[in-house]
């Protein structure tokens, strides 16, 4: 008859190593609140897609520049701009339960507060960043730094504060994919015309100024000319 095995005192000790004390994050970077992404067709931005992967641009029908609706991070800070929160709610619970209601006018204008758990496919993420939910979090010394797959912090020198990173071209491709999928409205053509007119006005004003240095004036004018040329890009409609 086999003798049943039993744990000895020695094996019990070996199975329970002393736990290493967990340390708080040592990343010296700014805390950043959780947020919704707010899309507003009347606030267009000119996306520079020259750094975006060619395959992605081809699949979406994008050129090197395109007008897209800006996606601003609308912070979920309790008590600010109608964000509701109860004591004890985590930032994530506030995102789920404390979302401020858009007014009728805002909805009619095409404003959207996007769910922070919207899935971002991996092809839109920078190298080394996995696909997954839109909202990511990085523990920092003073709390948490919430960010998107295209944001976050990079520690360059442990003695210096971490620096923010951004991948605007991939982010713009993802916004274009939302337009293509009909989840958000394209940028307003009227607003885009206004932005182009501002650039034309800036060019005229700069040209009429008296610069002590003619080279400097030429440099400024050529910079604005380049922006005017880029701004001739179409409003991206996903078609």
């Amino acid at each position, binding site marked *: 008859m086999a003798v049943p095995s039993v744990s000895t005192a020695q094996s019990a000790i070996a199975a329970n190593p002393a736990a290493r004390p967990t340390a*708080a*994050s040592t990343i010296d970077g*700014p805390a*950043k*609140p959780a*947020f919704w992404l707010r899309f*507003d067709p*009347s*606030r267009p*931005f000119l996306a*520079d897609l020259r750094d975006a992967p060619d395959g992605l641009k081809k699949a979406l029908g994008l050129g090197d520049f395109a007008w897209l609706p*800006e*996606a*601003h*991070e*609308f*912070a979920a*800070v*309790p*008590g*600010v*701009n*109608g*964000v*509701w*929160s109860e*004591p004890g709610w*985590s*930032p*994530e619970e506030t*995102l*789920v339960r404390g979302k*401020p209601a858009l*007014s009728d*006018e805002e909805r009619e204008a095409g*404003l959207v507060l996007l769910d922070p*758990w919207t899935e971002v496919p991996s092809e839109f993420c920078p190298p080394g960043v*996995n696909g*997954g*939910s839109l*909202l*990511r*979090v990085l*523990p*920092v*010394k*003073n709390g*948490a730094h919430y960010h*998107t797959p295209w*944001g976050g912090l990079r520690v360059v020198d442990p003695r210096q504060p971490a620096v*923010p990173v*951004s991948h*605007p071209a991939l*982010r713009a491709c993802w916004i274009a994919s939302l337009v293509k999928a009909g989840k958000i409205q394209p940028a307003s053509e009227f607003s885009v015309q206004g932005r182009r007119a501002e650039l034309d006005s*800036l060019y005229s004003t700069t040209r009429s*100024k*008296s*610069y002590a240095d003619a080279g*400097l004036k030429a440099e*400024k004018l050529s910079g604005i000319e380049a922006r005017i040329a880029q701004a001739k890009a179409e409003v991206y409609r996903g078609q």
Partner: protein
Amino acid sequence: MTTSITSPATQAQGLAAGVQYSYRLMELIALALMDQADVTNVMGDPVDLSGLGSTSMRLPFINTVGYSKRMTASGGETSLNAASAYDVGYSTASVAQYDLSYTQSAQNRVIGLQGATVTLEMLADMVVANYIATNRYLFAVAGSGISYATVGSAALELNSDDLFNIAYKSRLRLGAQALGMPVATVTPASFNSAVNSLRSEPGFTFNLDALRGAARYTGMQRLSDPFGLGYDVVLTNDVQTSGGADLGFAVSPGAIRRVKADPTRIQLPAAVNPTYLPDLGIVVYDLVQALNAATLGKQILGFMGATLSDPLTSIQILVNTKTPS
């Protein structure tokens, strides 16, 4: 390490009580005392939500009345025009509970070196600074939500064109001057970008006094009309960011409303020595610990918030510029 968020979860507290008592804290306190860009006077009269039965309320506003509405010529000698309509809108003010506490062990109080060890009383004395820091943050977050008008481009750092545009767009909001001088809130790094841009702006290169006024380091965080364009500047790193760009803002005083609730209604027992600051919406009191914890504590409890007001009668401009690297 960056982690994905899969579902609502408890947010770990970054700081644990008990690790804060080091001599380095003295340096931090010194920095905190310097870091006082008081924005409360820009935030106008507070909205008081005490006794409302809710943590939020609508702030109504009315437009197309007064100077925005002319009388209309009568349609005929005996037929008058129909009664006029006016526009009514609202923003939502909400209040949230904020707190901050410090503890000090009994041993630390006994063996602490007088003049060097930070005491609870020293920390409690800085409650006003805590309040200002909180309000400034709420103010900056509220300003990041402006959608009415925008200056700048997420592809370019703050520059002289943007500085002039803030003045131009402010001027278009007739009537807002009655609220007071507008204030632009930007990060110190963005301000540096703007000053750098002014070095090649003809109006400033031909006027050394103007350039000096803008570029001169003063050590202040609240700058009085530094560009001579008719608005003050507040420098703070509380300015929010989005997609690699700063969400600075320029507003009239009162365009962002401070929200509070009266803490005296808590009616704390006298044994915890409450000090009520009802105008600020906060109360400071002794933190009652279990006797076997051998610690003493101070608690600051506040009921605070901030919200954007009417964009049609106040200046509200988002200053959306590339975050300087």
